[in-house]
């Protein structure tokens, strides 16, 4: 046991011999969490900015702008046409919508009217903006639509004597329709699983920080492989042969050291998220601990196995960054896997990162308890066993 601890302590000292290791240990993970969390949710108004040009200046145009303002997806930014076009060319706004002159008059008469919409070509945001604009437009138009329907039926039964009579009938219909819409009962109720609702979480922020935690713990754990290369190339690994410490003791020492560091790192990141970013980490500390420890084991074991394949420290650091990022990406740590096509979601089940992310999602977003993450923890332990066995079998001192 003392030997294992000595080896673990030696590796920790080795890793932090340069202060720049702290960058990867804590600084970059925090920066990434804040930026990715902030970009997807964040404080303040995170709705998509949409440029709005009001060339009508009428009552219904103002109503449309208000409807846009109420949208949960977009936030209107009013500009005159020249300024709006300049801003749109700058690519920072996914959509530009123009309310044409005469909009209120035409709509009031119950006649169809078109808004000019321009969207950025490649952007998912543009798609969302289009839907939100259409929804706002429909909300404004529906009173006019109802009034126009009423006028048409009246006209079918008995034509209006004068245009003034028709207009008066339409205005009356419009007022009745508006009153009816205002008094309409709620016909949709959106609910969430009880536990999740109790968390009242910033879901996007929680998802981002869980994903970043996995990414940034994984990369240095994969770089465990560099330790082997360092000792092997320096000849110190051979020297270990002369001590009474066996192969198993040495490997256990290395793994214990790296896992210990990873646990400290995870603790710091969870703490930072909870205290500074005010993110929730779920309501089950035991579940969280179980999941993080099993993930740490799987990742360290993978790093150990990698260590038996690579030859130089340079290869190890390159491979750990590349592999770590790829595994994190495919595991849904960067972008929610709900965006992935079916085949990618299925294939990703072969990766430990997918299981870790799924477990964290259960805890921090669904608010489930330790029982819910037992399957994920078991799979992660399985990964650890397979990687560790491979690593030990392939391990050579020279």
């Amino acid at each position, binding site marked *: 046991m003392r030997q294992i601890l000595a080896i673990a302590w030696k590796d920790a000292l080795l890793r932090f011999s340069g202060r720049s290791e702290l960058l990867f240990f804590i600084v970059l993970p925090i920066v990434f969490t804040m930026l990715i969390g902030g970009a997807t949710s964040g404080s303040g108004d995170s709705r998509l900015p949409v440029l709005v040009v009001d060339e009508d200046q009428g009552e219904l145009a103002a109503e449309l702008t208000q409807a846009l303002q109420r949208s949960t997806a977009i936030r209107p930014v009013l500009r005159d046409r020249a300024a709006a076009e300049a801003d749109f060319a700058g690519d920072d706004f996914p959509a530009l919508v123009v309310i044409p002159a005469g909009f209120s008059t035409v709509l009031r008469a119950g006649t169809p009217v078109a808004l*000019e919409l321009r969207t950025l070509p490649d952007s998912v945001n543009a798609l969302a903006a289009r839907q939100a604009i259409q929804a706002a437009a429909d909300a404004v138009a529906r009173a006019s639509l109802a009034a126009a329907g009423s006028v048409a039926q009246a006209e079918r*039964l008995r034509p209006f004597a004068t245009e003034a009579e028709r207009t008066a009938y339409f205005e009356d219909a419009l007022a009745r329709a508006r009153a009816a819409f205002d008094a309409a009962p709620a*016909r949709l109720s959106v609910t969430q699983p009880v536990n999740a609702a109790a968390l009242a979480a910033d879901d996007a922020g929680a998802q981002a920080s869980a994903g970043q935690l996995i990414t940034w713990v994984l990369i240095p754990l994969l770089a465990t492989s560099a330790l082997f290369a360092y000792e092997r190339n320096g000849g110190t690994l051979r020297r270990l042969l002369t001590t009474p410490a066996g192969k198993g003791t040495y490997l256990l020492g290395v793994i214990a050291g790296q896992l210990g560091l990873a646990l400290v790192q995870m603790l710091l990141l969870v703490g930072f998220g909870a205290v500074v970013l005010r993110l929730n980490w779920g309501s089950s500390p035991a579940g969280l601990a179980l999941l993080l420890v099993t993930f740490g084991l799987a990742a360290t074991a993978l790093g150990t196995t990698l260590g038996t394949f690579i030859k130089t420290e340079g290869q190890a650091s390159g491979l750990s960054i*590349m592999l770590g990022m790829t595994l994190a990406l495919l595991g849904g740590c960067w972008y929610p896997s709900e965006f992935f*096509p079916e085949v990618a979601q299925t294939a990703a089940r072969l990766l430990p990162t997918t299981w870790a992310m799924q477990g964290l999602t259960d805890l921090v977003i669904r608010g489930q308890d330790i029982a819910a993450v037992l399957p994920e923890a078991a799979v992660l332990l399985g990964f650890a066993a397979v990687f560790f066995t491979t690593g030990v079998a392939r391990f050579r001192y020279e």
Partner: protein
Amino acid sequence: MKKIFIIGWKDLMLVLRDRAALLLMLAAPLVLTLALGFVSGRFSGQANPSGLADIPVVVVNHDGGQLGTALAEVFASDDLAELLAATTTASDAEARRQVDDDLAAAAVIIPAGFSSSVIPAFDTGATTAPVAVELYANPARPVGAGVVETIVAGFLSEVETAQVTGRVTFDQLLASGRLAPEQASGAVAEIARGLMEGQSSGALITLQTPSADPAAEAGDDFDVMAFFAPGMAMLFLMYTVTHGGRSLLAERQAGTLPRLLSTPTSPAQVLAGKVYGIYLTGAAQVGVLVLASSLLFSLRWGDPLGVAVLILVVAAAATGWGLLLAAFARTPAQAGSLGSALMLLFGILGGSFVPAGNFPGWLQALSRLTPNAWGLEGFTTLARGGSLAGLALPLAALLSMAAILFAAAVLVFRRKS
């Protein structure tokens, strides 16, 4: 001058022999681009490149009436077949379980009596007490659940409009004397039919995209990879240049720098040669990545002249950062880890991971300090069909960045030696 080229060429050859370096310079960006393409559905023939497709949704219809059936049919319609993967079940509990187990993005539960709460009874003209359609949303799939909510809300809005239209029409017909009260019940069916015919004309406000908008036309075949590939290329270009800066320090530590200086070569020539080597390696790396992704992923980068010029200029700006880092770092190891940190930091700031457009204003301004942001802007412009002329701003920004960073690096180097 020849000496500078020779030193630069030597450094490029050295890199080509370093398998570990090649791994990060070429393999990593290609693998990550490939992975991004994979998860975004680029290779599975998905029509919608946003990645939102086949959103799993489960529908429970307890309403025996026509509205419940109509809403359930919306989810089964051909129009939404690509966006949604809808299933039905008879039990609320089963539907909720599917959401809880992450098998569905949302459950739509249509309560009993929904139709009769909206459509007035023929005989009495009255509706039953209002009931609400429940959307049980999966918090782990906020986007998918949001899409389902939009669809349900859209349907309900139409229902409400139809209901209000019917009521207003009747009330007004009666109030204006066009319809006598005793005729009312007989006219219901006919008026309802007339209203329905009128309503089928669709939305009163439509959204029109100007056909002369070139961006909209190009949008049809914009390739998401045209965003990922340059993003990853820029990310790992930063690795190459900081790695190059590291080699400057390594050469001093290994003693080959004094040896170079013992030849009839001036320190300025040696430095220029090393810088040229870094620049050459960076430009070659991006060039190879562009070529490889064109061949492997049949990705169109756009105007070849524009792409070539942008590669040369963005490599210069990135080299500037590599030099500045080498000027400040004390040991090769320090330059190495600071370099990796800088690469990742610039990657996230410059939009290689998430679009910088989503950041708050001050961060967007900060992202302009990275060659990544300008390079990405340039490459996206080209992929959207732009030409060299459209690159004036990014090129000018990158060139000024290069000039300022070179000057700063030289100043720091001078002070240190």
